[in-house]
């Protein structure tokens, strides 16, 4: 095991560069704050979560089933740890337009940076044993390559990306119904 870690900001920028049209479902807290940091504030297809820790990947699954557009989940390791069973559900339906990124920073970053105490846990291994393709990456270039491959794959890939903890200043809109409605409108009215 190496200590190398990717930069979550640069990796999130890669997501937007590689899949500019993707609907992005971001976990509450740090994943959403980083997405807000690197996105145009008008980016309608960012479905930021303000709550429901542990449910982010499930939101992405429902969205991927209901739209033909690419869907990317930006989950956190703490959130995924809360709902590992969701990986089995994702494997059962395996929508070809879904990619799941797990930012593995080993801490509960939004609540003060407390340790997950999960260093023995192999999240990619859990995803694979749930029936999914999975890969672990530890630097920004490897992430971009893995993400490009994942979005071109007909199966769901879980990318576990080890990152340093960060504490962004940016915030998504506080108007939660607006976030959901804006994302919905952008997916239903776009003609591209």
């Amino acid at each position: 095991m190496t200590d190398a870690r990717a930069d979550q900001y640069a990796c999130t920028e890669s997501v937007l560069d590689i899949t500019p049209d993707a609907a992005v479902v971001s976990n509450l807290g740090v994943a959403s704050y980083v997405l807000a940091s690197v996105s145009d504030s008008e980016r309608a297809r960012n479905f930021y979560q303000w709550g429901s820790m542990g449910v982010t990947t499930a939101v992405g699954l429902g969205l991927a089933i209901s739209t033909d557009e690419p869907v990317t989940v930006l989950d956190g390791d703490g959130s995924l740890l809360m709902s590992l069973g969701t990986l089995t559900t994702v494997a059962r339906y395996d929508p070809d337009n879904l990619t799941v990124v797990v930012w593995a920073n080993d801490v509960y970053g939004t609540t003060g940076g407390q340790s997950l105490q999960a260093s023995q846990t192999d999240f990619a291994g859990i995803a694979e044993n749930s029936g999914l393709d999975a890969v672990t990456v530890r630097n920004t270039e490897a992430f971009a390559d893995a993400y490009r491959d994942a979005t071109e794959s007909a199966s769901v890939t879980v990318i576990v990306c080890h990152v340093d903890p960060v504490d962004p200043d940016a915030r998504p809109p506080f108007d939660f119904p607006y976030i959901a409605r804006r994302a919905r409108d952008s997916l239903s009215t776009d003609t591209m």
Partner: protein
Amino acid sequence: MTWSKDAAEALADAGVDLIAYLPDSKMDALIDEVVDDSRFETVLVSREEEAIGVLVGAWVGGDRGALLCQSSGLANTFNAIGSLSVPARVPFLGAVTRRGNLGEFNIAQVPAGYNMDKLLDDVGVRNSVVTDSEDLRETVALAGETAFSTQSPYVVLLEQTVTGRKSEATE
């Protein structure tokens, strides 16, 4: 018609596209109806909280979602309902077999089951209890209509007088 056929028609009347569910002995009849019905996409979840996420995603993708589960499972959804469905104003229609009331033999079903209507009220989710199968189809269809037009979740609790009793208390 059986209660389960009535309920499936009501879900279709309400324009439901996607149904997320977890099995229950009483709910099986309705689940069997909907999984074989081409009007619905169905998603079996591993925990009911997941279903709320799936239904929220489906709404953002342009679909109308429904949840089928038992009242104990609905208790698993409360953080997702309270911190996603309600504050983001994302609707779903719930049809939930309610345990814990008349005829209940299992004390473990009582605290969340018997009190589920009050728990839903407290988290801000409107709800109705159906005790007579005559009322089922209209109640579920109207619940769907108000859920999707007001963009807020609505749950219909189905009593064992509708779905049939689980009779295990022998003495």
